[in-house]
C-alpha cells in the first residue's frame, strides 16, 4: 500500500497554530506512507493538481488530506483522486482546522494532535476498500411544504421548469404571512396586490397539485424516492361542491369564532372563508365553535348551502404521494404576547402586535383599513411602536435579531401618518437595522418626512391611565426617563420558529437549532441545502427573513431541485451495510433494529437463513453493524476494522 499525505496550511488558518512541515515530516516516517507534503491551499486548483501529480508520479493508492472539516471539502478531494484514477473511497480526511488549529492555542500540543489525527486517518485509509455507487431512478416530482411566499415561489419555479409539484399548506388558504400584510417596505406597494396573482398562478398551474388545509403525516424514503403521507384535515365542507359563495358564512349563527387570519383582531363565523382573496376560496367549519359540533344541533349552513357541500361527518383523509425531493418552506411564528406582562400585553386591548396592526391597516381587514383602536373603535392620535419585543433578549430565549421589525415599524409609522395626518408616532428602538437596498432611506423618511419620533431605549412598563396607555421607558441617548401617553401601542414581537417546527424536522431527518430554525448544510456556501440529501430549505423556516430574501431562497431551492432532477438516474451512496453470508448466523437482530426496514431475511439454497440488505433503502447509519454480535453485517467505509484501526492508532501508539 502506498499512502500519500497532504497537509494543508489553509493560509495561516492551520499553519498559524500547527507546525505543518513537522506534521508532514512525521508522516514521512510512517510505514505505508511513501509521500507526504504540506501545501498552502490544498483545495485550490494547483493544490488539487499537486495531489493528482503525486498519485501518478509516486504511484499512490491511498490518499490522506489533512485540512479543514470533511464536511467542507471531502467531496472536492474525492473528485480529485477519482480524476487521477483512484476510487473515491480511498480518501480519508483529517480535520486539523476546525478540530485542531482553530480551537487550540498551544502550537506544540496542536502539532502533536495534528500528527495523531493524520496517523488515525492513515490507519483508517489502509483499511479502506474501493466502493462503487450504483444508480437508481429519480422520481421527478417535488414536494413543497408550506404555501407562503417562499413555498409558492419554489413551487412555481419548479413547475415552470417542468416538474410536477405537490404543494401542501396547513392552513385553509395559501399566501402565508405575506397575505396578511397591508403594504410592503420599502416600496409601500400593496402586499396582496402583488401576491394575489402569484396565488392564482399557483392554483391554476397544471403542474402544481395543491393540498390546502393539509399536513404532512409521514415521510419515508430517500433522495429520489420519497413516500409521503399527507393528512387532509376534515373541513366538513365538500370542497368539490363548494363554490366559495359565502352564503353559509353570512347565515352562520356563531359570530365569535377566533379569526386565525386576522390574529384575533376581529372574530369570524364558525364556518368561514379566511379572506376574500383566499386560494382555494372554500369554506371550512371550525368545530371548536360550530354549534352543530359543540351543542349537537344547528345545521344552518347545511340548509343554506346551495350546492349541498356541508358534511358534518367528514373525517381526516390520508393520501399518499411519491416524490423525489422536498422543499421545506414552513415559515415562522411570532412570540406570544403573554410573554410581556410588564407591557400589559394580553390584558390591555390597546396593546397589540405588529401583525395585528397590519390587519387593522389593511383595507380588507376587520376595520376596512380605518385605523381604529380595539378598545373603543376610536382613531388613535398617538401611536407608540416598541421594537425588539422579545428579540435580542437572552432572558426570553431569543438572543437573535428578528430581522425585519425595524423596517415594518418604519412602514407602519409612515402608514399611520398617511391614514391619520394629525397623528404622532413614537418608536422605541435598540438599534435601527435597515441594511437592505433602499432600506436605510426608508427609515429616514419615516423620521424625516413623516415625523416619527425615534427614541433609543427600552420600554420598562406600559400601564393604562384613563383611556390612554402610558409608555414608560428610557431614552438612552439623552439619559432620561421618558413617558409617552399613547392611544395605541404596537409591539414588534419577536420572530420565532413555526409552531411544530421541531416535529417537522424530525419527520424530515434534518437538524434544527436551539430556536427551532432549520440548519442549512453550510451557512455560506450551501444555504438552501440540508444535510439530508434531497431536502431543501426556503424562507423563514431557516431563520427570520423578509419577503425579498424568502422569494430569493424559494427560487434558489427550486433551482437546486431542478439541477438534481436534470439527471434521470442518481448515484447511490455505496457506504451502506453489507452482509458476509459466511459469517451471518441468521439471528436477524439487524432486521429488528434497522430504522429503515432495509434488511430482510433471505433463505440460501442450502436452507440457511441470512440477512440481506436492500441497497436502495439502506441509509448507512450502521445501527445493524453495532447490533450484529458476530460482525457479519458491516457498514462499508465505517467497518469495525476501520474504526478499530483508528482506536488502535490512538490507544496503542
Amino acid at each position, binding site marked *: 500500500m502506498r499512502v500519500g499525505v497532504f497537509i494543508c496550511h489553509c493560509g495561516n488558518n492551520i499553519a498559524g497554530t500547527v507546525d505543518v512541515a513537522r506534521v508532514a515530516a512525521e508522516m514521512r516516517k510512517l510505514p505505508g506512507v511513501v509521500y507526504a507534503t504540506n501545501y498552502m491551499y490544498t483545495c485550490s486548483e494547483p493544490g488539487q493538481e499537486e495531489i493528482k501529480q503525486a498519485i501518478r508520479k509516486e504511484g499512490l493508492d491511498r490518499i490522506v488530506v489533512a485540512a479543514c472539516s470533511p464536511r467542507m471539502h471531502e467531496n472536492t478531494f474525492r473528485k480529485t483522486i477519482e480524476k487521477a484514477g483512484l476510487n473515491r473511497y480511498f480518501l480519508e480526511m483529517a480535520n486539523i482546522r476546525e478540530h485542531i488549529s482553530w480551537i487550540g492555542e498551544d502550537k506544540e500540543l496542536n502539532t502533536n494532535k495534528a500528527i495523531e489525527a493524520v496517523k488515525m486517518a492513515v490507519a483508517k485509509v489502509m483499511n479502506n476498500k474501493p466502493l462503487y455507487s450504483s444508480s437508481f431512478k429519480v422520481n421527478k416530482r417535488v414536494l413543497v411544504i408550506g404555501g407562503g411566499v417562499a413555498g409558492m415561489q419554489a413551487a412555481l419555479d419548479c413547475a415552470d421548469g417542468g416538474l410536477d409539484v405537490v404543494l401542501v399548506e396547513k392552513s385553509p388558504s395559501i399566501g402565508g404571512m405575506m397575505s396578511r400584510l397591508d403594504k410592503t417596505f420599502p416600496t409601500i406597494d400593496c402586499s396582496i396586490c402583488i401576491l394575489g396573482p402569484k396565488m392564482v398562478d399557483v392554483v391554476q398551474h397544471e403542474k402544481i397539485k395543491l393540498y390546502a388545509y393539509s399536513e404532512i403525516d409521514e415521510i419515508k424514503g430517500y433522495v429520489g424516492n420519497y413516500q409521503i403521507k399527507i393528512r387532509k384535515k376534515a373541513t366538513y365542507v365538500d370542497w368539490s361542491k363548494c363554490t366559495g359563495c359565502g352564503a353559509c358564512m353570512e347565515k352562520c349563527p356563531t359570530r365569535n369564532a377566533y379569526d386565525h387570519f386576522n390574529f384575533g383582531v376581529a372574530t369570524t363565523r364558525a364556518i368561514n372563508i379566511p379572506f376574500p382573496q383566499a386560494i382555494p376560496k372554500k369554506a371550512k367549519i371550525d368545530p371548536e365553535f360550530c354549534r352543530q359540533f359543540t351543542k349537537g344541533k344547528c345545521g344552518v349552513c347545511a340548509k343554506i348551502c346551495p350546492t349541498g357541500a356541508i358534511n358534518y361527518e367528514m373525517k381526516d383523509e390520508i393520501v399518499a404521494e411519491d416524490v423525489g425531493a422536498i422543499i421545506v418552506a414552513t415559515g415562522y411564528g411570532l412570540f406570544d404576547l403573554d410573554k410581556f406582562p410588564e407591557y400589559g400585553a394580553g390584558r390591555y386591548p390597546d396593546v397589540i402586535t405588529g401583525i395585528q396592526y397590519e390587519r387593522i391597516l389593511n383595507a380588507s381587514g376587520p376595520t376596512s383599513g380605518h385605523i381604529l383602536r380595539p378598545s373603543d373603535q376610536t382613531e388613535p392620535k398617538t401611536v407608540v411602536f416598541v421594537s425588539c419585543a422579545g428579540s435580542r433578549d437572552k432572558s426570553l430565549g431569543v438572543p437573535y435579531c428578528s430581522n425585519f421589525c425595524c423596517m415594518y415599524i418604519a412602514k407602519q409609522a409612515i402608514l399611520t401618518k398617511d391614514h391619520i395626518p394629525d397623528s404622532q408616532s413614537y418608536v422605541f428602538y435598540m438599534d435601527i437595522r435597515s441594511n437592505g437596498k433602499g432600506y436605510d432611506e426608508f427609515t429616514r423618511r419615516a423620521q424625516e418626512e413623516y415625523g416619527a419620533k425615534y427614541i433609543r431605549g427600552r420600554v420598562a412598563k406600559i400601564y393604562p391611565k384613563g383611556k390612554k396607555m402610558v409608555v414608560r421607558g428610557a431614552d438612552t441617548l439623552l439619559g432620561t426617563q421618558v413617558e409617552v401617553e399613547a392611544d395605541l401601542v404596537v409591539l414588534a414581537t419577536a420572530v420565532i420558529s413555526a409552531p411544530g417546527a421541531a416535529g417537522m424536522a424530525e419527520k424530515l431527518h434534518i437538524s434544527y437549532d436551539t430556536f427551532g430554525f432549520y440548519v442549512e448544510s453550510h451557512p455560506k456556501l450551501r444555504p438552501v441545502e440540508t444535510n439530508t440529501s434531497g431536502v431543501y430549505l426556503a424562507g423563514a423556516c431557516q431563520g427570520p427573513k423578509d419577503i425579498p430574501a424568502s422569494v430569493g431562497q424559494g427560487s434558489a431551492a427550486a433551482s437546486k431541485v431542478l439541477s438534481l432532477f436534470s439527471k434521470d438516474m442518481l448515484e447511490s451512496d455505496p457506504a451502506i451495510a453489507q452482509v458476509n453470508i459466511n459469517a451471518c448466523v441468521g*439471528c436477524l437482530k439487524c432486521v429488528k433494529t434497522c430504522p429503515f426496514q432495509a434488511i430482510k431475511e433471505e433463505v440460501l439454497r442450502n436452507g440457511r437463513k441470512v440477512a440481506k440488505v436492500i441497497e436502495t433503502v439502506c441509509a448507512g447509519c450502521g445501527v445493524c453493524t453495532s447490533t450484529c454480535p458476530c460482525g457479519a453485517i458491516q457498514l462499508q467505509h465505517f467497518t469495525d476494522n476501520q474504526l478499530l484501526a483508528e482506536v488502535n492508532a490512538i490507544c496503542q501508539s
Partner: protein
Amino acid sequence: MSTEKVKEAIAKILPDVETVICYQQGFDGLHTTPLFIKIPEEINGLIWNPLCVQNLTSYLPSIKKKVGIVVKGCDSRTIVQYLQEGLIDREKIVIIGVPCTGVVSVKKVLREIGHQPVAGVAFDDNGNIVVKTSKGDRTLAIADVCPDKCATCQYPTPIVYDYLAGDPIKSDKPKESVHEDIRQFDEKTLEEKKAYWEKELEKCIRCYACRNACPMCICQDSCIAETREPHWISQKLSLTEKFMFHMIHAVHLAGRCVECGECERVCPMDIPVAKLKKKINTEMKELFNYEPGVDPDGKPPMYTFNVDEVKIKEHKL
C-alpha cells in the same frame, strides 16, 4: 421422585419426535451427561435427580427436526428467550417440564468433600445428598450445595411446557433476593472490583467453554473472539484480551442472559463469569423492568427503545 413421570411423558411423546433430550449417568456418581433418546428402549438409561444440572436447551437452535426436551424451571427461560428472539420454532419442540426444588453444584460438593474421588451418590428424603468416598460417606443438604441461582430461584416450575411431570411448585424465595449478590458486590470500591476481576480473569485459558455452553451465544462458529474480519481481539493470552473477551460475552448477552449459569458451571478454571451478565440483568430490570426469558411476547431491550426513556437521565459533566 419425578423420574417415573418423566419416563412416562417421554414414552408418550417419543413416537411424535425425532429425539428426546434428557440426562443419563456420567463418568462418575456426581456427573450426569445428556442422553438423546431415539427409541423406547433407551428410556431406561434416563436418570432424573438433582445432578441433572446442564441446560439442555442450548442444543435446540441447531436441531432442525422435531425434538422433545426435558426442562427445569430455569431451563425453560432459555426457551422463552429463544421464542422472543425467533431462534426456534415452537411447533417443532415438545417440552416436558419438571418442577424443580433445586439442583446440586458439583463444584460445591467437591469443595465440601475436599475434591476426593467419588465412589457413589445417593439422595435421601430430607433433601440431602449422600456422597460416598473412600474416606466414608458425607451427607450434605442440597440447599447448602446448590448453585447460587437455586437459592433465589423464582421459577421452580417451567414457564412453558407441553407436559408437566409433577405438580407445579411456587417459589418461596423473595423477589428482592435475586439481585442481592450483585448489589453487595457493587458496594465494593472500584479498586477492589478491579483487583477482583483481574485476579479471576487472569485464570482464563480462553477455552471458550463458557461461550460454547451458553445457550444464548448464538454466534458460535462466527464469534468475534476468533475472527480477524472483524479483528476485535488477538490470540494473545494477555489480561487485556481475556478481559475484552469476557466483556464481549457480557455485552452481547445484555438483556438476553437467562441466568442458567452454564458459563460459570462449565468453566474449568472456576471463574465467576456469570456475575458480569447478572449485573447487566440487574440494570435491565432497573432500567426497563425487563427480565430475560420470562415473557414469550417480551422484547429484548437492546433491540428496541422508547422515545422517552423514563429511567435514563442525561448525564451531567
